[in-house]
């Protein structure tokens, strides 16, 4: 492994009931995925404000992924539907602004799908790594 190999910054929002538990299960089963993924626990995928995602890109994130319960299985009944609509709009706008669609993703991972969580993260990190650094929205004034 070369020293200056690009390591992307990935923010993963995970809902408390399904995806965060899925991530825990991936851990319990010792399923490896890159350390570039850092998880933020939210009660529901619908808690994720598009502003949080803009903030992440502004602060230099290279990819943002939102994981929630499968459609129809939301702990709060309908939260993931709101998340899906909001993110569809936001991601197409970001794409229009030059932040590639591949840098953003919505995935459904249940509490039982530890293996899926690891697969999704491996794939997402690979995709973002291939895209390289994201400079489009990064605000250097945010950096110390």
């Amino acid at each position, binding site marked *: 492994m070369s020293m200056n190999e690009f390591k992307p910054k990935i*923010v993963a929002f995970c809902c408390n009931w399904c995806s965060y538990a899925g991530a825990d299960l*991936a851990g319990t089963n010792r399923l490896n995925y890159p350390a570039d993924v*850092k998880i933020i626990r939210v009660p529901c995928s619908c808690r994720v404000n598009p*502003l*949080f995602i803009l903030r992440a890109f502004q602060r230099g*994130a290279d990819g943002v992924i939102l994981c929630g319960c499968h459609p129809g299985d939301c702990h709060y009944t309908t939260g993931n539907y709101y998340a899906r609509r909001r993110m569809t709009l936001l991601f197409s706008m970001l794409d229009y602004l030059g932040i590639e669609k591949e840098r953003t993703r919505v995935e459904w991972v*249940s*509490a039982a799908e530890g293996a899926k969580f690891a697969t999704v993260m491996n794939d997402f990190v690979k995709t973002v790594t291939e895209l390289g650094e994201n400079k489009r929205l990064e605000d250097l004034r945010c950096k110390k």
Partner: protein
Amino acid sequence: MQKIGVFVCHCGTNIAGTVDVKAVAEALGKEPGVVFSAEYPYMCSEAGQNLIKNAIKEYGLTGIVVCSCSPRMHEATFRKTAAAAGLNSYMVEIANIREQCSWIHKDIKVATEKAIVLGRTAIAKVALNAPLTASESPVVKRALVIGGGIAGIQTALDIADAGYEVDLVEKEPTIGGKMAQIDKTFPTLDCAACILTPKMVDCAQNEKIHIYAYSEVEKVKGFVGNFTVSIKKKARFVDETKCTGCGVCTEKCPQKKTPNLFNLGLDTRSAIYIPFAQAIPKVATIDADYCNMLKNGKCGVCSKVCAAGAIDYKQQDQIIEQQYGAIVVATGFNPIKLDGYDEFAYNESPDVVTSLELERLMNAAGPNGGTLLRPSDKTHPHTIVFVQCVGSRDTTDCGKPYCSKICCMYTAKHAMLIRDKYPDTEVYVFYIDVRTPGKNFDEFYRRAVEEYGVHYIKGMVGKVMPQPDGKLLVRGADLLMNEQILINADMVVLAAAIEPDKSARPLATMLTASMDTNDFFTEAHPKLRPVESPTAGIFLSGVCQGPKDIPETVAQASACAAKVIGLLAKDKLLSNPCVAHSDENLCNGCSSCEKVCPYGAITYVDKEFRMPDRTTKIRRVASVNAAVCQGCGACTVACPSGAMDLSGFSNKQIMAEVDAICR
């Protein structure tokens, strides 16, 4: 200014093995706001908790971060610790450096760096935490048990004994499960029906137990203490309240070609049926796939002969909604399908059977009335070969990587019973290992070998070849003698691996309960909380959690009942204080939040505001009912003016987390 304490747990070597905990504690000690930082081998131990308590008191900490296992594991523990030291329990954040760091990364440098980032993210969040107070919610004093096998029956009986109402849901027309199909039980050889059916009758007679047979759980809403469950009562086409179980309809029904599923399809039954003599509830059911009346409207014999007038061809599925304080999963198992194992000729020859099929063949209520005969020509078999670990401990796609646990013992039981009843029959058992840990288990196996002369051969069977004369030529390896063996057998019995019932996975999704990669339900802690799911209010009974024999299943079922009783005995549960709240000064009363709220927790009130020019103005503003709000946060994003926020997961907190990760 916050005074934050950081506590890094080694979790023995679980964390310390791949994360340099000293470096993490040191790095996090330099974060802004942190006044105390320490690491300790087991932070959840009494000594570890005392370390936290003492630091809170000594340094006057206003917030703590524990870098340890998942918050789903010990968040509640550390909240209690904080409360005991006089710190508000919601001033605690957990950095998950075990499940989401040390367990998935192997490189110490990489894992340590990530642990520091996760730690500083939690510090950034806790710096913005505000003290919260939990409110109370009532507990519905009723339990739901899903699955009516021996596990579900035992759990239901024990909960009912403590005086609570229990609903027992079973998808088949009768309760009893797999144990009802078994002939004898190891290691005592008592008859399964003789010990099971009295328990089934107890269930039926217990006033507190309500059996919903031929029913399935459709939908689950709510949370611990207050679940709302929709149960689909499938149409039996027989009125349960009228049917007396006399069985006349089953005799007169002209459609006798229906596969008898209770006997695993080894014989046939009528289209209207009672699964077995001791079925509970003892009510007939019409198999809609085979009934001539339901298929093409030509018959109606059962309706004519039924003295009670119980037949109802127009019966529809019925949905019943009920509230529960706790839910028990007891969905059990099935033997795996053997389609992937062509080498054993299971699909080719009727004389190759699974062990469960052998149970039915040997059972007095089975297709041959208890006489062991070859399914193909109904002759007495003189040589029987048992193959163990068919699909168990098999890492190929068609198999299961785990040990099914019960096969060694039931194979010894079968071999012994056959040798006892038919001493002229030679019995061979091919095994990889014989595993007999259990009370009187090894003695039982030794008896099969030493007293009953069963031939145990270490090795696997490579191929079973059906011969033109009806015999089965079995080619296997004897690893101890290092030679190939050929046996000319009359029957081959395959100890098929067991797997969780197919209904378990959709159910887990409904319950938001986690499962492992083999579809067994995950327990809250593998050693210390073996009968609870990590999802509060969901409990696990029997094989749905992992392979078990009957004594273990019953023990777990009773343990599970004890946990349910402990929950139902409480009058109030503390409810989640992480709910939405609106800033009246920012709210413009637009109703966006009300529209997205799934609970109807948001209403609007007219409020008087003092304006800068000393006049007053009445404005419509949102008001959140904290008792109804479940804290999903949908409203916080819908709010265009930024008035709505969520306690515990505020906009500022999440922004701070994002910043800390990207720093």
